[in-house]
């Protein structure tokens, strides 16, 4: 039978992880997701909770450099990991190149999906560098490169309810050009 009361805090797991370069040791109820830890326990509210079910990408963060949905991970599962959130990418005075590109291209309307879009695009650039293929490639064994079709496929895990997609794609392609050629 399922327990009807929370397990005693004495049995809570301790998780050591790095968030935006800062080490943390957290002992929290094991039900706590990485997303709720960031937002509610650490005040890092840049990562958004859109669906809480892996469907929208608003909670996208980088885990050891790879983009993931923070809503579908318990913080206890991230022991030893390095997390980067939108707060770790840039500040208002020193924007990350992708943040600057979204600004320049008006890649947002309400802005709710934007932190997730930007973290996701950072992860996508790394995937291209590591040769990760995509479903948009005619031949999965080929070397991947980015164009608008590829960006749309590779960013399909980030939904924008305002449908700012054309400008999001333009911002990402522009930033990529400025970045890696």
């Amino acid at each position: 039978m399922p327990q009807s009361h929370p397990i005693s805090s004495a049995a809570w797991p301790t998780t050591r992880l790095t968030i935006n370069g800062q080490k943390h040791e957290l002992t929290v109820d094991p039900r706590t997701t990485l997303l709720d830890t960031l937002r509610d326990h650490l005040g890092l509210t840049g990562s958004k909770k859109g669906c809480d079910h892996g469907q929208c990408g608003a909670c996208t963060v980088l885990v050891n450099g790879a983009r993931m949905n923070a809503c579908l991970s318990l913080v206890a599962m991230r022991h030893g990991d390095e997390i980067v959130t939108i707060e770790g990418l840039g500040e208002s005075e020193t924007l990350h190149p992708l943040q600057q590109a979204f600004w320049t291209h008006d890649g947002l309307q309400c802005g709710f999906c934007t932190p997730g879009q930007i973290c996701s695009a950072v992860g996508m650039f790394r995937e291209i560098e590591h040769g990760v293929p995509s479903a948009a490639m005619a031949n999965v064994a080929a070397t991947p490169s980015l164009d608008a079709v590829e960006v749309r496929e590779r960013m399909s895990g980030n939904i924008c309810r305002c449908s700012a997609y054309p400008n999001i794609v333009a911002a990402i392609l522009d930033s990529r050009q400025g970045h890696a050629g």
Partner: protein
Amino acid sequence: MRPFTFERPTSIAAATLAASQLGGKFIAGGTNLLDLMKVDVERPTSLVDISALPLRDFGATAEGGLRIGALVSNTDIASDNRIREAYPVLAEALLNGASAQLRNQATAGGNLMQRTRCPYFYDVFMPCNKRQPGSGCSAIGGYSRLHAILGASRDCIAVHPSDMAVALTALQAEIEVHAPSGVVRTLPICALHRLPDETPDHDTSLAPGELISAIILPPPARGKQAYRKVRDRASFAFAVVSVAAILDCSSRTVRDVRLALGGVAHKPWQPRAAERALVGAPASGASFEAAARAAVAGAEPQPGNQFKIDLARRLIARTLTDLAARGG
């Protein structure tokens, strides 16, 4: 979410023992289990995080195939050059599933063990024999557009959602399993998932506490291969119907063919009659059409998904024709 204890064992023996206890459950990437725990469908009282187990190796087998550890991420399988070159149907199936974020999180073992996306299974206020045996099936006579047309039962018409499992079925992969007793066995992928029959609460043949440790691929098959998926939007959606096909032709005659269908049954569906009809037949549009008809000959659709018969038939014929044109 209901309360649970959390542990992170470092040995397979400790993990299988812990998960075999009442209420115990493995968690790997968490992308399916946590989703279901949030809606109160899964109610484990103890979670066994398997991420510290030595299940990440990805190497050649003595037979000339590949062994993929159960914790290798979906992205890492699809990105591996050996997979992209010699088993492209598997890379394509993975890349057509979920989103980049989810593929980074999701593991090989978790992908195989993911549960159906039947909307009634997700809704604890609706009858569902898979979630609550004996309560009834809301999909029969209800919204059945995405449900099974083959191999369903009077108790459940759900489909298995994994794209990867469909490709592995065409590739005739094997699954390595560790039991809590310490016994290690391998079973063909077609013996992992089961048809619903009268016990749809059992998705697979695994017993509680049994751990998938690896997927074993046989040496690369001859011929050309492809995974084709039809879905309701261009990306990031489950299959309405999908096909994994491997076609080997010689002097315009089919030497060998392997087919598996997704989105049509409670497990990846092998249209054996279609495969048999093709071997030795001319590699022509007419043969492929006939085989595709044979593949769906026994279909028993619901009122809401009759279209899947034509869709599956056309998808099979089209995929085989394309493979033949590529020199399958």
